[in-house]
């Protein structure tokens, strides 16, 4: 298990403070808004993740052994979900990533339903894409 960063702790307490779906939704929208966009020039087939109903773009680098990931999509709540995913895995090492229990992370945030095996929201496809890219 890789440990939670201070930012992740912060996110966790923010989400755990939400006691309704509405608050969670508003918080997700806020997270999504704060996430940097991937420009139209960078939105190329190579950077497109297959298997999401709403297209998701991904730029992935390893700097000094740690992951630098950019994710973007046009759907705002999905973008929020991508943002909270990044909170958990941004800047860690590829080795640590293999240890992260993403399900557990989303469950703790009260967002476990978003990780269903259904292909529709694509969050699973994003996680799988990142893992495959690093494998």
């Amino acid at each position, binding site marked *: 298990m890789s440990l939670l960063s201070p930012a992740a702790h912060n996110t966790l307490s923010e989400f755990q403070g939400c006691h309704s779906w509405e608050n969670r939704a*508003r918080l997700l929208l806020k997270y999504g808004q704060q996430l940097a966009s991937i420009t139209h020039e960078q939105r190329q087939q190579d950077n497109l993740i297959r298997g999401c*109903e*709403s297209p998701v773009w991904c730029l992935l680098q390893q700097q000094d052994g740690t992951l630098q990931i950019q994710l973007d999509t046009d759907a705002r*709540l999905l973008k929020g979900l991508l943002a909270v995913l990044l909170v958990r895995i941004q800047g860690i090492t590829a080795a640590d990533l293999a240890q992260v229990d993403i399900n557990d992370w989303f469950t703790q945030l009260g967002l476990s339903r978003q990780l269903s095996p259904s292909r*529709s929201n694509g969050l699973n496809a994003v996680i799988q894409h990142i893992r495959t890219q690093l494998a």
Partner: protein
Amino acid sequence: MQQLHSPWRHLFPGIQQLNDTGQVWLDSAATAQKPQAMLDALLQYYQQGVANVHRAQHQPGERATLAFEQARQLAAHWLNASNSDCIIFTKGTTEGLNLLSHALAGQFNAGDEILLSGYEHHANLLPWQQLAQRQQLQLKILPVDNNGTIEIAHAADYFNSRTRLLAISPLSNVLGQLHSLQPLLAQARAQSIITVVDGAQYAVHRQPDVQQLDCDFFVCSSHKLYGPDGVGLLYAHPEQHALMQPWQWGGEMIEHCTYQSAQARALPLGFEAGTPGIANAIAFAATLEWLLSLDKAAVQAHEQALFTQLKQGLTERNMQIVGQPDTALISFNAPEVHPADLAHLLSEQGIAVRGGQHCAMPLFQQLGLPGAVRVSLALYNDSSDLQAFFQALDKALEILT
């Protein structure tokens, strides 16, 4: 909003149980809930002891075969087919269309054309696209304009001497606009163009009459028609059986074989390789029988009244409706809102509608939309379902805008 109560709702245990868990089912175009009559038939078939069909001559085998063939007869009757030999049991619409794209392969020469509408479901596009790629055919598309409209009245203008097949749906799962295809199908027949009708959505809201439509082939799925999933119908016009070459091969679908050669049986058995979904066919027939027992006009009036309420509510809220829907379902977007976001927040509130491209990606490319939210209706819906939907919609829009 006037209160509309479905007199058939209480016959659907799934609707009751979904309601009990706070879910409002408005995704019937994806799959429909099942009436008690279907469940009873399914359970009864399995409980009384099963047997394979068309194989052994023992009594359970005879009984199962009889029930299976009666199911075929009922399906033929329901479609108004002239003969139950015209009915092939499939896994569903998709398998029916894939079957045709192989069974009819011998009818094409390189350069021949296949004509489809621009709003077809992937199931009625991709099998033809693949056939075209395998045999160097041209896939022609009846264009949908930016409003989602297609000029069915002028569709025959796209016929030419190379056109060999027309595949089209009378009711799109996205646009919800009912097209009367008879004149077009008649023009196709006059020019010896093979016609395939994708009735997956249409069959749910209008009882098909394949003789009146006068198409060559017609396909539909049981699961959208209140029946079990995993079974569907393919109707083949009696005079077109000779066009079809066998596709899947196996057990009893042949007349004779050696290690090196085989002759297939005629329709329908020659196209039903392997042990079929016997229970499903029988339970589907029970569903059709139940449907036949309903007052068709009352069902249609109820669905139409719900549709009007749905359309009105969406219009009042200035939603952007896709196309010119008039039947059973409406796809729409809220201005400046991504459909995935809207679908997400509706689902948070227990409203089961579908957001996305609805297996019609090329149509959405054509419309320049990332997708849409679709509300689809069935005979068991009440206006209370619509009220719950509108309430949730207002709430979602409050959050998103």
